[in-house]
């Protein structure tokens, strides 16, 4: 229940962090909020020769509105985003999803970018990023690249991040005029990881639904001009295609039922909020 020995590095700025990562390579890990990494290291499910602590890099703790996007820096905690007064206006989906991310005692430390980088299939923020088609900003000592969520998220706890890259920021598109958003999830207790989470966006004739907790990564489906009577069939097809499995939290059949029911409820709620 204790981590294996490692060297602790606290860079003074992002460039030092990138150099350290380039130097040590795959044996180094970024330490952000530590709310996923340290449990894994305590259980020895993860180990590292060096931890590079970026949690105190003040220039990376920001929330910035740019052209149509909200950019969130790598040191911004989930609590800071939740307390951002413009959150509900700027991205209603995030505002609805964030209270489900752990507990207020973990959101105080856990970062937004850390959750995206960790890429747990049942986590809420990667689901929002996928559904809204957000972007991930990756930087190494060699340069910067920006990946769409769909390219970044490759599977269970797996991403397209290269070993020498830091997720320096994530970008969520701002709410679209006239669109409605809804987020819902089923978890054993409030704050637990979702057995199934859904994020819906309804805009004009287009309906989009993202599902987390069932497949090995957040999965998004979009329907255009779907007649109301065909929604149940569409959701049923989607639920089967996600290929959920049985585990100690729930059966695959229960998860399919959640996709059908929560999916419909979220789409109806999003439609109500759209104009």
């Amino acid at each position, binding site marked *: *229940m*204790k*981590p*294996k*020995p*490692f*060297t*602790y*590095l*606290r*860079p*003074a700025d992002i460039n*030092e962090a990138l150099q*350290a990562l380039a130097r040590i390579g795959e044996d180094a890990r970024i*330490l952000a909020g*530590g*709310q996923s990494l*340290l*449990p894994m290291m*305590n*259980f020895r499910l993860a180990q590292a*020769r060096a*931890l590079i*602590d970026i*949690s105190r890099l003040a220039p990376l703790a920001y929330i910035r509105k740019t052209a149509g996007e909200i950019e969130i820096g790598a040191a911004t905690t989930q*609590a800071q985003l939740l307390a951002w007064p413009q959150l509900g206006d700027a991205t209603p989906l995030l505002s609805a999803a964030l*209270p489900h991310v*752990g*507990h*207020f*005692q*973990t959101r*105080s*430390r856990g970062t937004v970018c850390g959750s995206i980088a960790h890429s747990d299939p049942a986590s809420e923020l990667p689901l929002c990023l996928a559904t809204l088609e957000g972007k991930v900003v990756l930087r190494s000592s060699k340069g910067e690249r920006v990946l769409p969520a769909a390219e970044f998220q490759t599977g269970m706890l797996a991403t397209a991040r290269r070993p020498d890259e830091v997720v320096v920021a994530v970008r969520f598109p701002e709410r679209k005029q006239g669109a409605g958003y809804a987020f819902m999830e089923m978890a054993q*207790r*409030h*704050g637990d990881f979702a057995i199934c989470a859904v994020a819906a966006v309804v805009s004009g004739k287009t309906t989009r639904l993202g599902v987390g907790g069932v497949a090995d990564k957040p999965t998004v489906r979009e329907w255009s001009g779907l007649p109301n009577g065909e929604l149940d069939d569409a959701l049923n097809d989607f639920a089967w295609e996600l290929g959920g499995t049985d585990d100690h939290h729930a059966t695959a059949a229960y998860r399919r039922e959640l996709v059908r029911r929560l999916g419909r409820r979220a789409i109806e709620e999003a439609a109500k909020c759209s104009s």
Partner: protein
Amino acid sequence: MLELKEGVRHPVDFILNGKPARGLAEPRMLLSDFLRQELGCAEIHVGCEHGVCGACTVLIDGIPARSCLTLAVQTAGRTVETVRSLAAEDGALSDLQEAFRRHHALQCGYCTPGILMSAEQFLRERADPSEQEVREMLSGHICRCTGYVGIVEAILETARSRAGAR
């Protein structure tokens, strides 16, 4: 860049319950173990060591956090408050602690130090919390004895009496 080598015990200077404190910690030492083993803080209770139970919760720079998911070396230069900071020097309990006692908000007391720290900070930020908000805050803690009813009552009562005193 600060570099603290593995396997070596490094000095960690910080403020513990209002007073300067120092101890030695390897990089891998968790804050929970550091407080208990190096500094004798037996009030830090360790339940799960993966952030779920909340027993080890302390305030770091005034914000509730899991000491089992914090490295001791990360607290250098910061302030840490444990449940010991709540009572007066002479041992007189705080209003919140008294309310816990009145409402039987603890039985074995294993979960209590963590819950008290979360609740104290919660009450500093929210003068008039709803029961729903209290329960949401408590979702970050597991109590195997009480069933939470007394805990919720004690926190709500303290909120009311503090509001009345203002």
